[in-house]
């Protein structure tokens, strides 16, 4: 047993800790003296107490022995000059000092011949420090520097200038500073350093509100114990944004720990970190003890087992990527950049993945992007467009050619077999609108017309969705179609301003001829009742059996043929996917039923549905 076996800096750390669960774990110290304090008449029940002096070879401090460990002293198990490992302790502030309370410890070695090292009273060391520092008590900000200096380089006796060999379990040192587990961070203690990997980094975001404006960015940090979000504002953005890179490991210290604003984070930690101007971030190349991002990849052919709107991890070879395009976000009415990638894997299937915003724009700039790289994605959203599709969230991450086993496996497979293979994509014939399935396929939403009315569908604020199997009884003949703008994706009504001059207000253009599009109003019935449904162009074409333009032609040619077409369209059964919503027109509020998708009936299938319903009823 020698000086090296004691945990250097432990005494200072224990004395300065406010919340001891987060301090150095399990330090090894030497007991310099034990003094019994007889129970006072004021508190006889407490029993005798023991006051112990403990030392780490550099400093010594007073400690009280928790009453549960009294027996160890009384039995002689612990004595002067014994070396113990502290398992649990607390601190109490008493007259400007903190007294350590030893709650649990174990004996590491019987008493050494002499005390180890030349420990000085820690109180003196603390007084000296506070005179040097700008504040009298530890506080975030300038004072940290000198206090950290004190902790990192305590007076070391010449004999033990070697770095020490035995380290207490659970703590490690790097450049003299103890490395804390992320789970151990709290607002009560700010002398910590963490060694963590950046698992995701956000873009720089600018904000502007009544209180002012600024910019910020954030990263998610991961170590063995947990994850925490860290944010930098304004100047910290300039200082740290270029420095921190995804998937690299950094030593971070002198930042502030606050209560987490959970609505802005996808992590569970109740705390989060804010970088300050004096925060220190240093890249750490020895990253072997920091876990990499943990993936749970779903093979592309098993994506069907993931429900839409859930997230998952996917890895594949980039078979191709598309051009940058732009759509208008329904939520913000602003343009958003998007780009589609096609990923393939050994399951011989391909899937589409959508990138948004900056990552869509800068995608071609990534190294190796044109050499069919392996790309790993974490936390991407699963959708059901075309069967299954993938989309990035802002919290999703993408790593090109990660150094992990699955990536090597994919590379080997692709270079040998995959490059020659055909991949079956996720598409569904007849995909229009509903994302792959036929109308009426969601039996949970199936209703009879009587149920639609009895259940008051569409009569609340929110729209209701349902599907019915019903027969077209009558199609309203007037106002069956309108003249629409012929340009792609613009369906606005155009008005005739002159011979061969049809004006579209939205496009601000005039066209020689309009397109005709249906506005269908049809009465449908089933065994339980009748309903008026509204439909649009696709539904009209399906039910009437020709396009609105063709019907318009017929109307001009022959009234009787026109009527015959509409007559023939009646008395046919369809499955209708519908949306019921309240509509207020002047003073009257009515429910309107709109067809989002219509399909012809597969009678054998419908018959089987009835059989199942009958059996359930029996």
């Amino acid at each position: 047993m020698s000086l090296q076996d004691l945990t250097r800096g432990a005494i200072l750390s224990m004395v300065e800790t406010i919340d001891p669960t987060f301090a150095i774990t399990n330090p090894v110290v030497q007991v310099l003296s034990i003094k019994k304090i007889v129970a006072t008449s004021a508190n006889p029940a407490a029993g005798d107490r023991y006051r112990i002096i403990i030392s780490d070879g550099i400093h010594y401090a007073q400690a009280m022995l928790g009453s549960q460990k009294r027996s160890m002293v009384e039995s002689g198990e612990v004595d002067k000059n014994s070396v113990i490992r502290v398992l649990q302790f607390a601190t109490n502030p008493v007259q400007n000092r903190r007294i350590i309370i030893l709650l649990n410890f174990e004996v590491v070695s019987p008493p050494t011949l002499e005390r180890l090292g030349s420990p000085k009273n820690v109180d003196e060391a603390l007084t000296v420090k506070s005179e040097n520092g700008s504040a009298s008590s530890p506080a975030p900000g300038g004072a940290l520097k000198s206090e950290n200096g004190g902790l990192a380089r305590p007076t070391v006796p010449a004999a033990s200038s070697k770095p020490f060999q035995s380290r207490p379990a659970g703590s490690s040192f790097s450049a003299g500073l103890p490395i804390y587990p992320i789970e151990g961070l709290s607002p009560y203690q700010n002398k910590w350093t963490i060694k963590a990997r950046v698992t995701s980094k956000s873009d720089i975001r600018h904000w502007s509100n009544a209180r002012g404006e600024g910019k910020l960015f954030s990263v998610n940090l991961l170590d063995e114990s947990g994850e925490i979000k860290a944010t930098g504002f304004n100047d910290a953005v300039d200082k740290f944004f270029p420095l921190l890179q995804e998937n690299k490991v950094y030593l971070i210290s002198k930042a502030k720990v606050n209560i987490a604003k959970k609505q802005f984070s996808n992590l569970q930690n109740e705390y989060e970190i804010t970088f300050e101007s004096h925060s220190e971030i240093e890249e750490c190349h020895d990253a072997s003890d920091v876990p990499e991002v943990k993936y749970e990849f779903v093979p592309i052919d098993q994506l069907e087992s993931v429900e839409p709107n859930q997230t998952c991890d996917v890895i594949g070879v980039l078979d191709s990527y598309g051009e940058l395009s732009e759509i208008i976000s329904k939520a913000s009415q602003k343009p958003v950049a998007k780009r589609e990638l096609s990923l393939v894997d050994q399951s011989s299937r391909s899937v589409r993945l959508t990138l948004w915003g900056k990552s869509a724009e800068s995608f071609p700039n990534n190294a190796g992007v044109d050499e069919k790289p392996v790309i790993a994605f974490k936390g991407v959203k699963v959708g059901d467009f075309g069967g299954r599709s993938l989309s990035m969230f802002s919290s999703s991450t993408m790593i090109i050619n990660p150094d992990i086993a699955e990536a090597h496996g994919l590379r080997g497979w692709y270079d040998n077999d995959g490059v020659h293979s055909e991949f079956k994509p996720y598409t569904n014939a007849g995909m229009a609108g509903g994302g792959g399935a036929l109308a009426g396929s969601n039996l949970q939403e199936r209703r009879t017309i009587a149920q639609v009315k009895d259940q008051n569908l569409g009569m609340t604020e929110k729209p209701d969705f349902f599907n019915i199997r019903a027969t077209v009884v009558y199609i309203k003949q007037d106002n069956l179609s309108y003249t629409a703008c012929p340009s792609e994706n613009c369906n606005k009504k155009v008005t005739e301003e002159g011979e061969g001059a049809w004006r579209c207000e939205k496009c601000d253009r005039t066209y020689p001829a309009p397109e005709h599009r249906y506005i269908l109003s049809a009465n449908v019935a089933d065994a339980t009742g009748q309903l008026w449904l509204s439909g649009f162009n696709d539904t009209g074409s399906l039910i009437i059996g020709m396009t609105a333009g063709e019907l318009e032609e017929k109307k001009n040619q022959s009234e009787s043929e026109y009527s015959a077409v509409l007559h023939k369209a009646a008395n046919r059964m369809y499955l209708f996917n519908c949306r019921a919503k309240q509509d207020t027109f002047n003073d009257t509020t009515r429910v309107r039923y709109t067809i989002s998708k219509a399909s012809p009936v597969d009678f054998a299938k419908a018959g089987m549905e009835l059989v199942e319903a009958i059996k359930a009823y029996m």
Partner: protein
Amino acid sequence: MDRPVPLVNSQTLANHRGQIVRLVGKVHKLTGNVLLVQASDQGFVEVYLNPESNVSGSVYVEITGKVSESGESMRELLSINFGENLDLKLVEEVVQLVPKFPEIFSSKD
């Protein structure tokens, strides 16, 4: 036909000796005027056709006819061609379910 005519398969045929029934099935073999029909339960039924009958072109057929006294064959009264697309499994479900709801499907006598 003022009584409901029950839908049968090869097994339930024998429950209606001497009565008029409907049989839906797949045309299997025509030999002279005897048609072998595979019913919805996969079993075969002999049907004695009328001279003017024309069922050979069709894959599926519905025969309305009288069951013999032995219960092993039937004599055609009327046949309808059902074309090439029919779900015989659905037919079998109906054959099984209908007898369970006599209040709906039986006649009043």
